[in-house]
């Protein structure tokens, strides 16, 4: 009994920092509609800066002053980022802001190592709170009690700020209707900057407060950001009270989950999130999102199938790529195979995101399931490569059938978060079910059949599979099913009113995307000869998102270009520089600012800027259809 109480207290203490960071994220989202991926990075920066300051200046004033100054410094950095970067891309599709902040996260990770080194750092104890208090004969750090008290205090202060100050009232008004607030003559620019700074301050403060409890490390950002996403989604995006309640819920689940169900401790939190989202799609305290911004955003040019000329061009490129093994070296070919695998992975995600309008943050789950499916077949059934490549992806399909059924009930950010939750559940299973999956050690010895075991052979195999699959996906886009899917994306109201069952159409699209990702995953297993839990981790999902957005979310096949550019760049940078994350993050940020429509979208814009041939737009369309019919 006493033990449980102590455990509960420890959970409450953890909840304080989680709440601080989550409330910051929630406030930023509520007003700016930005999911700030860099929030974890600011949390980490807060901890590092506080470490340096408290290290330099001893004593109570030094410690508390250091924590506060560190949070303010990081908040200033955040404000700067908002002014320099985010202001430029407010009009881009929502996901671009996520991509940009992800780029910043990558940069911060390397910068932190550059400045503070890669060793974990031990911060000082909080003066006056170094001891422990005896609770029923068990010792609880007195600092924990401070944190437990701090949570409600900050909640109260935030309430006062939002309800008793002019600024707070404006912010709440902006949360409900940004256009109206702007038309009342409020300077939105500075309102946004100040809100962003407040959100970042809370994140940095949460990080700074952690230094007496845990070591400061350069992996703090990713571990917290996932938990914070979960908290914010359970509590309801934009709700500070929701963040408070959910932070306690999640922390207690963590504290007790590890006692009761150590085997699936990591899963419990995500299971709770999944249940909350299915029962209350907008979180415990959230309100339904307003009408989402026009599906993908900027300017949608109706898609057309390729002309014969374009088809010949693509065929020529495929032929050139197919000739590569005749002159390229082994290393180039294995890099090429990896890029091909990611092309298929990105294309499958692109189908779901662009055609289906469903932005998955957990697409790696189906990639990983395909990889594990193939690996388990080889390991337990001695299946040959050919069989494993066919049956392995079925695991991705099964996962997509199961998870997709829940996910398509939601939309927008909540859909993204539920896909993330399912991906994390899958990852936890792969990581914790050691008897079957080998846990962290993965499954080794997944080698291709002899005919495909040379880099040349495997490259050809990968190329053949990827070309067929990408072509199939593209055909699907222009098929009646693809049209129905786009209809459901463009207008749920209209599609329902012309007899389209949007949810079931989206579910099928989810399954299709999951299956193709599974095929890519199975190929990946044989390329690497092994499978590890990272295959279905968050970084893999994010890689997919980056590739799709980089290629151009409004294009039919931008993902192919995005995957080639991103993966080639990442592999090349990794071999050239120690600071690959810094450079890659910088490149992502630059690309987002310079090419908000992605690479292919940018090229299409260039092409359409040229003067049009005489003849109305209508006749042009008719000619195109005629051409397509002639081509059949």
């Amino acid at each position, binding site marked *: 009994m006493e033990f449980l109480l102590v455990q509960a207290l420890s959970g409450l203490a953890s909840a304080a920092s989680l709440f601080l960071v989550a409330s910051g994220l929630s406030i930023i989202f509520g007003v700016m509609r930005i999911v700030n991926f860099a929030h974890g990075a600011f949390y980490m920066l807060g901890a590092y800066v506080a470490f340096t300051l408290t290290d330099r200046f001893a004593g109570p004033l030094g410690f508390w002053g250091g924590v506060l100054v560190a949070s303010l410094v990081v908040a200033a950095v955040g404000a700067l980022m908002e002014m320099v970067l985010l202001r430029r891309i407010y009009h881009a599709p929502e996901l671009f802001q996520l991509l940009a902040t992800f780029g910043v996260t990558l940069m911060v990770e390397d910068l932190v190592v550059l400045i503070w080194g890669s060793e974990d750092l031990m911060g000082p104890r909080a003066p006056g709170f170094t001891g422990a208090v005896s609770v029923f004969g068990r010792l609880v750090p007195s600092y924990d009690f401070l944190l437990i008290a701090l949570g409600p205090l900050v909640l109260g202060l935030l309430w006062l700020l939002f309800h008793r100050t002019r600024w707070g009232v404006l912010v709440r008004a902006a949360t409900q209707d940004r256009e109206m607030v702007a038309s009342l003559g409020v300077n939105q620019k500075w309102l946004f900057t100040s809100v962003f700074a407040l959100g970042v301050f809370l994140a940095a403060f949460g990080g700074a407060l952690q230094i007496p409890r845990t070591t400061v490390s350069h992996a703090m950002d990713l571990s917290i950001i996932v938990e914070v996403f979960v908290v914010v989604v359970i509590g309801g995006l934009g709700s500070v009270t929701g963040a408070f309640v959910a932070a306690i819920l999640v922390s207690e689940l963590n504290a007790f989950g590890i006692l009761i169900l150590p085997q699936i401790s990591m899963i419990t939190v995500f299971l709770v999130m999944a249940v909350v989202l299915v029962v209350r799609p907008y979180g415990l305290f959230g309100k339904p999102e307003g009408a989402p911004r*026009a*599906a*993908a955003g900027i*300017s*949608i*040019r*109706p*898609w*057309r*199938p390729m002309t014969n000329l374009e088809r010949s061009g693509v065929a020529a490129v495929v032929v050139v790529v197919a000739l590569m093994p005749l002159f390229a070296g082994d290393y180039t070919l294995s890099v090429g195979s990896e890029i091909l695998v990611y092309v298929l992975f990105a294309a499958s995600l692109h189908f779901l995101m662009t055609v289906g309008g469903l932005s998955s943050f957990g697409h790696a789950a189906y990639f990983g399931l395909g990889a594990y499916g193939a690996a388990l077949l080889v390991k337990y059934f001695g299946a040959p490569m050919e069989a494993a490549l066919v049956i392995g992806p079925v695991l991705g399909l099964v996962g997509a059938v199961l998870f997709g059924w829940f996910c398509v009930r939601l939309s927008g950010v909540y859909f993204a978060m539920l896909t993330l939750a399912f991906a994390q559940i899958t990852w936890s299973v792969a990581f914790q079910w050691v008897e079957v999956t080998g846990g962290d050690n993965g499954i080794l010895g997944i080698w291709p059949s002899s005919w495909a075991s040379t880099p040349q052979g495997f490259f050809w195999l990968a190329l053949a599979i990827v070309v067929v699959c990408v072509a199939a996906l593209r*055909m*699907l886009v*222009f*098929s*009646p*099913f*693809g*049209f*129905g899917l*786009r*209809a459901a*994306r*463009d*207008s749920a*109201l*209209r*599609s*329902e*009113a*012309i*007899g*389209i*069952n949007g949810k079931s*159409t989206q579910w099928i699209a989810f399954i299709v995307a999951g299956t193709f990702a599974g095929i890519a995953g199975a190929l990946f297993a044989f390329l690497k000869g092994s499978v590890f839990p990272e295959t279905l981790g968050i970084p893999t999902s994010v890689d997919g998102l980056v590739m799709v957005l980089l290629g151009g979310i409004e294009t039919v096949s931008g993902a192919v270009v995005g995957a080639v550019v991103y993966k080639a760049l990442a592999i090349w940078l990794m071999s050239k520089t120690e600071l690959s994350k810094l450079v890659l993050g910088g490149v992502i940020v630059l690309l987002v600012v310079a090419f908000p429509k992605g690479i292919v979208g940018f090229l299409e814009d260039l092409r359409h800027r040229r003067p049009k041939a005489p003849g*109305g*737009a*209508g*006749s*042009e*369309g*008719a000619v*195109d*259809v005629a051409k*397509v*019919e002639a081509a*059949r």
Partner: protein
Amino acid sequence: MSALLQVNGLVKSYAGVHAVRGVSFSLNGGEILALIGPNGAGKSTCFNMLNGQIRPNAGSIKLAGEEIVGLPPRTVWRRGVGRTFQITATFSSMTVRENVQVALLSFHKRLRSALGYAGAAFLDEANKLLALVGMEAQAGRPCGELAYGDLKRLELAIALANAPRLLLMDEPTAGMAPKERVELMRLTAAIAREKGIGVLFTEHDMDVVFEHADTVMVLNRGELVARGTPQEVRRDPHVQAIYLGEGLLYDARHREESAQ
């Protein structure tokens, strides 16, 4: 002959507010029926119940004798009910023709097919529908570029794609220029009479209502307060009382008198 649409005792309340209380009416094929009433009278709620978007608390909606209450919009559509929206809802990433083609593909139950180019499907039928509403010249244009009046016409073409027996039009001419309004309603009336389609529409523009409707129903505070020919309704003192503040009926009568 039994009515095409028979509505009985339709009720809807939201958290204690009675939006629609016991609305009953009927509509025959080829008849053009206008539902008017001041803002907040419950017109849109009525409309959304008829096509299944909102589930009524009580009441019955029979289409050609078959109960359709409680069916989702997509099923109601399959039974032969087309509709247009007050704020146009079209597929903005597609061309004008593709918008109609999707509706046709859905009508012919082809949307589950993964084979073939959908942009080449039902080309003739799509072109015919577009020609019917006078949009054939714009068939290849991106739908997102259209002027508002053209979007309204496109909506009509989409709504006609399932060869409906009943057409629901929620403020079909809102936001259009006066000349366009007359054209669109003439067109609708001609199509409805030719194909025997029953049309129910709501409208704020009384000129449109009195010129094009065969029958006018007046809804006030969730209840039908009058029903009759445009002439009868216009002279109804009860209706005049409802509209007095808005002056719309007064204007209409005034115009009529000065014309005589």
